[in-house]
């Protein structure tokens, strides 16, 4: 049906593609290439766009910068703290919401609310929840006889507070994905398993979980990438600072500080590429594991 491409047809195709290519090229591809090059500028005139020397100095700087190390460590703790708990919790909630319970659609809506609400608005609420003296969280802990925690002002507790907030924020989206995944598993498998005398626990681990694996896999990739890119939650929760004593400084926050506050564009670009490399490698590893598991 399609003719062999010739000069005329190719030119025509380009004309059709041009608007999208123009936008993508200007705002996505050009910045990617330019920031990659920028990360190697070691001596340059920013005002006249003149580069005098290229090199690895920016990367070497990151290697030695304790702030960057802190950001890296905080981000790792954040990802490890948020992703597994968020996945487990949202899967659990999805399993409960999947069953015909009273007020099911009400709960489905409630759990999805954090996803559609603005981070800034939600952070205002959470700042009150985390408030050392009047916060709901400390009030609850107080009932259990636990001393109030200075969630947002104590450097030891800033990151856990951020993790709590991020888990809550991520639940809705993951629950929706899991609900969709669950509805793709035909009911007859569960009926068959019941007749095979499998109890609920066995049914979950032998039937639901393996059949839900493609969804879980997708959710984990999206969650890990999302967690590595965490920024607005930090900015909003700590009122435009990376937490007390930079205790909640994350990679993207570090990039933000370097780029906007210190105007060290080259170092910011280098840090962005380090972040890219980490998420890229992790995704490749995950794909590799995932393919091994789903292979028929």
């Amino acid at each position: 049906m399609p003719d062999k491409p010739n000069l005329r047809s190719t030119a025509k195709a380009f004309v059709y593609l041009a608007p999208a290519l123009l936008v993508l090229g200007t705002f996505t591809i050009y910045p990617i290439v330019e920031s990659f090059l920028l990360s190697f500028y070691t001596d340059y005139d920013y005002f006249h766009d003149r580069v005098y020397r290229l090199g690895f100095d920016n990367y070497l700087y990151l290697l030695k910068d304790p702030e960057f190390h802190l950001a890296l460590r905080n981000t790792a703790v954040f990802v490890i703290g948020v992703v597994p708990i968020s996945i487990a919790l949202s899967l659990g909630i999805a399993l409960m919401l999947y069953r015909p319970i009273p007020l099911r659609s009400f709960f489905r809506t409630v759990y999805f609310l954090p996803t559609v609400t603005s981070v800034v608005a939600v952070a205002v609420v959470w700042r009150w929840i985390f408030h050392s003296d009047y916060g709901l969280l400390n009030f609850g802990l107080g009932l259990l006889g636990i001393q109030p925690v200075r969630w947002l002002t104590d450097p030891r507790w800033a990151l856990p507070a951020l993790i709590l907030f991020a888990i809550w924020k991520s639940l809705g989206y993951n629950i929706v994905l899991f609900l969709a995944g669950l509805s793709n598993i035909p009911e007859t498998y569960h009926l068959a398993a019941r007749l095979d005398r499998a109890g609920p626990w066995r049914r979950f681990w032998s039937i639901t979980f393996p059949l839900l694996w493609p969804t879980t896999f997708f959710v984990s990739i999206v969650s890990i990438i999302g967690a590595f890119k965490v920024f607005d939650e930090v900015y909003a929760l700590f009122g435009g600072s990376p937490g007390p004593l930079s205790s909640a400084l994350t990679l993207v926050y570090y990039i933000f500080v370097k780029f906007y506050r210190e105007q060290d564009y080259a170092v910011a670009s280098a840090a962005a590429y380090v972040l890219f490399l980490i998420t890229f490698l992790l995704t490749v590893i995950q794909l590799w594991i995932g393919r091994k598991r789903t292979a028929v």
Partner: protein
Amino acid sequence: MRVELEGLSMRFGDVTAVDRLDAVIESGELVALLGPSGCGKTTTLFLLAGLYRPTAGVIRFDGAVVNDVPPERREIGMVFQNYALYPHMTAFDNIAFPLKVQKIPKNRRREMVLEMARLVRIESLLERKPAQLSGGQQQRVAIARALVKRPKLLLLDEPLSNLDARLRLEMREEIRRIVSNVGITTVFVTHDQEEAMSLADRILLMREGRKVQCDAPDMLYLRPAHRFVAEFLGNPPINLLSARVGAGGRCLLLNGGTPLTDLPEDIEPLPPETPVVVGIRPEDFRLEAAGVALGDPSACRGKIAGRVAVRETTGRETLLRVETCAGAVRVLAPTGKAPHPGTAVVLTVEPSALHLFHPETGESLRKIPQGLPKAASGVQLA
């Protein structure tokens, strides 16, 4: 295991899927639940499995009421219509799953799976996943999985509907072989009369949630208790003609006054002029060439004159559509003797081959022997 259903009913909201069903399934029997779609046969099967809870009535397994026993503890093997093989497990793991649940040791498990695989003849396919198996092979795996835990009752939901015609014939024999080999009480659901007739010891024919008749396949065919049974079974379908009882109460007259035959003997006496519906199977007509003297009304050995309108050969037999004074009738004749369209013919029928039904209730006017399970077929009518 002996299964008893007593006044079994299942309502979904306003819809009554199963309505006061009574039936007994003897130990070791192979029973078909037959009926048009929506007649409640699958619901009945799911009630037996325990996947639904009846809204009224009782189910007894070997005398014990099992209404409140969950499916996990009913000792039932079930093969679903789409087989429901776990897609992420190999055939071996699928069959082994019920044993694994029961925590049977690995070696013993392996032995039992292999034994089942031999029975259903899939030894060489055990390492494959369901997606790599054909429909027939998947079904064999599903049957093996259902039987490996040695259940007391085997349930099959439309076992042959997902297979192509040739495979269907093969699996029909296979299911018979496997089930009789294991000697297990089996209930299967089908909407296909041929499948039910060829496979079952007894057929429970249902309509709109109610039992219409439950008997051996040949009894159902030869002695339908209801007009619905006569119409549902048999291919090509039975001819139904309106008639009335003639003067003296001995003879049947077709509409228009043509005498048909004497009334059969096993019938309550009917007053003259009683309207009845006469059912005649296409193979019960005898064809004679026209020209033979038409009927001797006094002897009431009527001959129906007609003309062949359509002729359809299926091989050994040919189906004719004959236009008569009582309307068009289907007649089955040996292909060699089947006349061509346009030929004038005369049809006769034996009184014993007639089925008579009440024009309103549809119930048979002939006496229906209460068939015992596995009772001999209708010898009288052979």
